[in-house]
């Protein structure tokens, strides 16, 4: 492991060519406003910086270097051409508050992406401003709230979520001031319809759902669910994290959803940057259009213009200082244009083909799918319950051991309701050979679990660090160099 950059620091060093020339002019700021001592930033030369961070980067798995079957995350190829074009100086140097006449290039892209997202979702209105899925969820649930409010339907205080839902769903509902109520899943991975029926009522503001669900199966009774929620006066929210599974095949709007977000960094292949940025546009049916967050691009006599609070008096408001992650919007737009309508459909087809192929191979190799009778969507779950019991090798151990095989681990222990689970999503951009290599690795690890379980339990062995002590990290909080914080 490289040292910390602070350990390379020497007083007086910096990247000289980057420092502006000294101007012989006074600083017109009274002294009591000024900083007295320097912040603790590293003092290093340009080569040291480039070498340090280049070396750090090499201590990462990534799509560009490894297969990354991280369920629910759609880690597909991020086209380099898209990134390259988004870095054109005309885009990079453009100020967000430029007048419209100086912004038509960018606005054309944003406008067209709004139209494309309407087409793929079957919705009537789109706002691109949410900066990730969770913020899209926030916007969506806030719109549900605003909708009921506008109709003076003020007692709807509950949002329903399946027990399999992603953590952002309940967290969002809570952040919007709702009470969260969990709906159980039946043995086939579907929402338990009877429980749902029992749960809805005049207090129901809406339900958040993803379909296919995070269990990797398509919710077949989706129309029943929609009917139940709608009849109770609630609205249906579609968590678009799994849109990759159905792109061009079936549309949330057609399934009865009222509002949804789209994770551009998943389905639209924008790079995830080791944690972000993302993009979480929201799409809505007619009745929610007035509530969309602003700004929104409109086309008016051949010119693009921004619509904001003034033009959208019922909007839930603004979600970012400017207009969201514009560069991600640009990239998603370009990806959509590269794919075109045929390409969109192929995404779902091949994502599904890859997932079902993997599932079939793993089943044949003796792994246990969480839902044996179901078709996999673009992802699926295997449970290592038996293995954990028999050989005391957990899903975590298997995941860590996979890293030694130079493959990123699948999502572990999510959804929470399936014990010792791995959620596996290969995506459409991986080749059959890569999938075969993955299956081989898992078979090998299963074998190791039986024959040398310690090897698996103490994995990884080949990376820059062995298994890390998370408990110590949380107990002896060290989150800032040289400033160890006492346990709280």
């Amino acid at each position: 492991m490289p040292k910390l950059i602070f350990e390379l620091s020497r007083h007086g060093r910096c990247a000289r060519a980057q420092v502006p020339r000294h101007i012989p002019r006074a600083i017109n700021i009274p002294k009591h406003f000024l900083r007295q001592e320097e912040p603790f930033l590293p003092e290093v030369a340009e080569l040291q910086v480039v070498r340090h961070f280049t070396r750090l980067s090499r201590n990462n798995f990534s799509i560009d270097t490894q297969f990354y079957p991280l369920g629910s995350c759609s880690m597909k190829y991020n086209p380099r051409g898209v990134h390259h074009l988004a870095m054109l100086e005309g885009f990079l140097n453009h100020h967000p508050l430029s007048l419209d006449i100086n912004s038509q290039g960018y606005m054309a892209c944003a406008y067209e992406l709004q139209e494309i997202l309407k087409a793929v979702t079957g919705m009537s209105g789109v706002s691109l401003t949410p900066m990730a899925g969770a913020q899209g969820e926030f916007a969506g649930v806030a719109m549900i709230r605003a909708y009921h409010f506008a109709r003076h339907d003020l007692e709807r205080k509950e949002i329903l979520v399946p027990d399999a839902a992603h953590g952002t769903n309940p967290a969002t509902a809570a952040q919007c001031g709702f009470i969260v109520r969990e709906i159980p899943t039946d043995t086939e991975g579907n929402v338990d319809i009877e429980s749902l029926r029992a749960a809805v009522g005049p207090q129901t503001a809406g339900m958040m759902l993803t379909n296919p669900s995070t269990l990797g199966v398509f919710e077949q009774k989706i129309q029943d669910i929609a009917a139940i929620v709608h009849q109770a006066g609630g609205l249906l929210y579609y968590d678009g994290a799994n849109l990759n599974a159905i792109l061009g095949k079936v549309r949330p709007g057609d399934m009865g959803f009222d509002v949804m977000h789209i994770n551009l960094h998943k389905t639209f292949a924008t790079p995830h940057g080791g944690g972000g940025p993302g993009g979480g546009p929201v799409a809505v049916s007619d009745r929610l259009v007035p509530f969309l967050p602003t700004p929104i691009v409109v086309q008016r006599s051949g010119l693009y213009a921004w619509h904001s609070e003034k033009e959208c008096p019922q909007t839930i408001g603004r979600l970012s200082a400017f207009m969201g992650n514009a560069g991600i919007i640009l990239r998603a737009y370009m990806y959509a244009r590269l794919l075109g309508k045929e390409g969109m459909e192929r995404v779902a087809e091949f994502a599904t083909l890859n997932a079902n192929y993997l599932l079939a191979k793993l089943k044949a190799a003796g792994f246990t799918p969480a839902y044996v009778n179901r078709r996999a969507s673009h992802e699926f779950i295997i449970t290592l319950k038996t293995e954990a019991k028999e050989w005391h090798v957990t899903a975590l151990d298997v995941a860590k051991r996979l890293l030694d095989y130079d493959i990123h681990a699948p999502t572990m222990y999510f959804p929470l309701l399936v014990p010792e689970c791995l959620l596996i999503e290969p995506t459409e951009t991986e080749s059959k050979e890569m999938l075969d290599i993955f299956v081989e690795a898992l078979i090998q690890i299963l074998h190791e679990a039986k024959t040398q379980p310690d090897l698996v339990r103490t994995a990884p062995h080949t990376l820059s660090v062995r298994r890390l002590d998370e408990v110590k990290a949380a107990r002896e909080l060290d989150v800032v160099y040289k400033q160890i914080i006492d346990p709280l």
Partner: protein
Amino acid sequence: MPFIPHSAQDIQEMLATIEAANMEQLFDEIPAHLRVKNVLAIPESLTEMELGRLMRARAQQDNNLLCFIGAGAYEHHIPAAVWEVASRGEFMTAYTPYQAEASQGTLQLLYEYQTMMASLMALDVSNASMYDGATALAEAVLMAVRANRKNKLHRILLPRSVHPFYRQVVKTIIGQQNIQIDDIPFDINTGRISLAVLKEVAAETTTALVIPQPNFFGVLEEVDALTDWAYTKNVISIAVVNPLAMALLKPPGQWGKTGADIACGEGQPLGVPLASGGPYYGFLCCKKEFVRQLPGRIVGRTVDQEGKQGFVLTLQAREQHIRRAKATSNICTNQGLLVTASTIYMSLLGPKGLRQVAITSHQNAELLKEKLSTIEGVEVVFQSPRFHEWVIRLPKPVALVLRQLAERKMQGGFNLNSMYPELGECLLVCATETKTEEDIRKFVTLLTSILSSTNLLDKAEQGGAHAKTYL
């Protein structure tokens, strides 16, 4: 098939393994009547070459503008090394570092970032990023609310000298909860918060005071006095600052006798391009007693099985994927790559370089101010110390002047008209270290000629319809 590797033979073999007759069958659990019937209303695919021509033309449309707009997004020189390294596939195409052992690069970098940002703010801890400056402020307010359990109703003092868009975002985000926002007016002469007004507005239920530095008008607030006042009133002080300015100005952790409790703001000035408004990132730092309220990801240093140093995401119990409805925030995907760029940027500049960027920006802004104020009818509005931005009043309608400038690819500043009608025809102007004397001369000359032209109104009205931004 763009980006899909499957050969015809692959498809056959895979379908055979699945025991599916064809691709269609893979979707047999989807009710047939729900399936998309018509071809999607989306254009046909483009090749990368075709896309390149289209996008180059679009980029060209918005290119080569000379920019004196600031208002929350600042043009700074970004060393080429920043994005050359940040764009490496291993940083750019990685997911969140859930598997710590396979993500030490990102995790160590975030730990370094946290150290740098906390130190820049002179506070104890930093998280690994929020979406942007505005949402960081909203989250800071929510932190304050969570930290102050004694109040049932929470009132937040939110001065009007805070960026108007930030205030809007705060309202959108915390508006869903039982929190009241009190707008604090600014002193019309100084352009800053007046302690006297503050004292009037404050109440028992006041939970937090937001203190901008510099404020939206570029003016420096009397942060020491404000922080001290908050402390004595048991009000949590939330700084919202330009991080670059903190290399020159007194940082939040040193305001007043106790320092501000929380600091947040927009990270964009530290190595992130303007890029039509994003992706940027919000930073959020606080005193250590607030760390459990801090939303978002935090990286901690620990050891591996062999005692070797390593890094992990820590305090995850605060986060949505563990605590679900009780999480400190719903944020999941954050703005990691932007933080990567900023960390490289701060490393290149170091404390002295960063300070020099801040100083040069200030100096250029002062020069521009001097030059502009010599134009007949142009008036500098607030007579307080400024960082690199300030307000001028024009003798003609700002919208029309800006429009005329824009037609000549000159972006003269941000129109305050609709946000602060009480100020009259006011413009917020900014200069950073990127501006040369030649640029300043150009701007002054052009503005002089536009202001002295008699037929300004006629000309501009034709185009007036398009002269707005997304306010």
